[in-house]
């Protein structure tokens, strides 16, 4: 490489901005045709990354993608010990009032699937109203190859029939070996 940083102290990692980074994936697949959520069914949230606000300008070094075209998080370019912080942004419109929501990440594969699940706030302000879920962050660490090498799907479960519009997800990477 003809242009490279000089690190006389040998400590590395002093240029933090070139170690960590993020990619923001903006979905268009649910913009005009919202995703239908059947009651009490876990439904995978899609993200085609084709939205105008997709931002790959600040990806971590040596990382080209963090999500596949179906909306599953793709950590295969990361390493064991790395951590990702995910901020999802989606809006749900229930057909009946007072539905409850659960969200989960589906991880692993090959018979070793597992889920990280959370309960979201109840949609109790009425039906036909948009409930936006955004700004909260989740943390997933690459503790084993089962997590690292398999797609991480985003899934939602509503007790009320509803529709979902996905704005997208930003995925921040914190490297273990800075």
């Amino acid at each position, binding site marked *: 490489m*003809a*242009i*490279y*940083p*000089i*690190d*006389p102290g040998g400590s590395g990692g*002093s*240029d933090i*901005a*070139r170690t960590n980074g993020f990619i923001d994936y903006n979905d268009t697949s649910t913009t005009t045709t919202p995703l239908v959520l059947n009651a009490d069914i876990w439904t995978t949230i899609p993200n085609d990354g084709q939205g105008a606000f997709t931002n790959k*300008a600040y990806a971590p070094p040596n990382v080209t993608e963090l999500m596949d075209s179906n909306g599953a998080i793709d950590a295969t370019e990361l390493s064991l010990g790395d951590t990702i912080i995910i901020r999802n942004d989606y809006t749900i419109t229930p057909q009946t009032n007072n539905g409850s929501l659960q969200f989960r990440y589906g991880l692993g594969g090959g018979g070793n699937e597992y889920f990280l699940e959370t309960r979201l706030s109840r949609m109790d302000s009425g039906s036909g109203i948009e409930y936006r879920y955004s700004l909260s962050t989740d943390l997933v660490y690459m503790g084993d190859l089962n997590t690292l090498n398999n797609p991480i799907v985003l899934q939602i479960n509503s007790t009320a029939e509803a529709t979902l519009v996905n704005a997208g997800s930003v995925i921040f990477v914190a490297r273990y070996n800075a």
Partner: protein
Amino acid sequence: MADTLSAFSIPGVWTNLNTLTGIAAGTQIRIQNVGGANDVVDLAISATEPAADFEGVEVFQNAPFYQVDAGENAVWAKYKRLDRADVGGRVTKLQVQT
């Protein structure tokens, strides 16, 4: 060792560092971003001026010196903002040493 050169002003368009500094292309140089906190300098090695949307090697403020090896083509630099704000007519500062 050559005396320290005062930092050079880098605008928001690709600027030939060899022309700017008087250091011949192909000479080993070391570069440091001594601009403001949001100032980022894009670097590129190219015989000709890179396209306006070309994305080079980003050097952030307070990053260590970057080295360009001897024997390379001309070195180009461009100022951009970390927050992607329009640079307009502003400049940032770049230390260039042989």
